[in-house]
């Protein structure tokens, strides 16, 4: 039996058209909803029936692609993972992710985020490379537990929208990039941490973090980026103080 959408909720959506608008403004829509409808479905209803120009990113509808991150009532959330019934009676404010430039309506510029992910060399660099014929690189469950949660990042950027230090300093490497870095640095099969340490150093590296912790609070995948960032404060400090010893080692 299909539930009838006899309840309505007001969505106040931040609109911005780079061609016609000097700056963004809110527009209200009254959306009929059923108890199983997400904010994303509310936006889709608006686009289908009221205003086809409403622009937002989405893909999987099941909290795994990381496309539909937006500020819902000032909190970074996945629109597909937030039910309208939990926000009743409304109104619900829907805005693009904080700290990122707005391209149009709810779509933000992701270039800076993508560059940061690229900068941490996000792939496995085997400690001891061997041909396929010699079999797989084995790992114990304990070795996997050391990095497993960091591998769950879906690049949704909610943590960057939550992080006031990224808002203050867009050069700050930020939470997700450090979680992804730790996913590889913490992997027993990986030997590439020397390549990644430059992204960790300095004010624009982990020291830009003041342990606000909002990144871990908003993460929809329990990645705990705050843990990754702060764990690396120890790594960068050790690398700084032991750099003379290390040089001797390599000679």
């Amino acid at each position, binding site marked *: 039996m299909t539930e009838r959408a006899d309840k309505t909720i007001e969505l106040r959506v931040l609109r*911005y058209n*780079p*061609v016609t608008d000097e*700056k*963004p403004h809110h527009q209200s829509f009254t959306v009929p909803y059923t108890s199983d409808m997400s904010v994303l479905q509310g936006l889709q209803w608006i686009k289908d029936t009221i205003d086809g120009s409403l622009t937002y990113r989405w893909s999987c509808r099941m909290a795994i692609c990381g496309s539909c991150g937006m500020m819902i009532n000032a*909190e970074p959330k996945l629109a597909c993972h937030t039910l309208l019934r939990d926000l009743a009676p409304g109104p619900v404010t829907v805005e693009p992710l*904080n*700290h990122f*430039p*707005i*391209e*149009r309506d709810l779509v933000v*510029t992701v270039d800076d985020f993508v560059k940061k992910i690229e900068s941490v060399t996000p792939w496995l660099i085997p400690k001891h490379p061997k041909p396929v014929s010699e079999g797989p690189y084995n790992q*114990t*469950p*304990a070795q996997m*537990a*050391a990095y497993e*949660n960091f591998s769950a990042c879906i690049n949704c950027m909610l943590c960057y929208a939550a992080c*006031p230090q990224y*808002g*203050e300093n867009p050069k700050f490497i930020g939470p997700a990039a450090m979680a992804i870095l730790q996913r590889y640095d*913490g992997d027993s099969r990986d030997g590439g941490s020397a390549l990644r340490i430059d992204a960790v150093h300095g004010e624009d590296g982990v020291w830009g973090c*003041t*342990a*606000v*912790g*909002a990144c*871990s*609070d908003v993460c929809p995948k329990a990645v*705990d980026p*705050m*843990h990754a960032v*702060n*764990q690396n*404060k*120890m790594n960068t400090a050790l690398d700084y103080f032991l750099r003379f010893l290390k040089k001797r080692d390599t000679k």
Partner: protein
Amino acid sequence: MSERRPYVRPMPRDWWARWPFRHYTVRELSGVTIAIYAAVLLSGLVALLQGPAAWDAWRGWLASPASLVLHGALLIAMLWHVRTWFQILPKTMPKLILGGTPVPQRTITLIGTSVAVICSSALVAFVLWRPF
């Protein structure tokens, strides 16, 4: 193709005073109480160096209502600092894996807080009763 003109929203200067960052701001400010209490102890040390008169004056100030209010406020802030310090402890230490599974962060916080409470209580008991 439509024109690109990305709009950058300004960061509010008082973000630290707003929800949801107030908790963080109070936690960090409670750390300042350590510096204030260190200054109180240091002033006592300076008074001790200056001689008996200065030492007695400092002891007198300690017993004044203003000092008692200050110490009460410092104690509350310090207790809050202890609580929140151990809350973020598991996020600032390397991941702890025991028997193949990560130790829950709540367990680490609980153990740390318990050790702090036991040590502090033991110290207070020692000072109050002076067994030797």
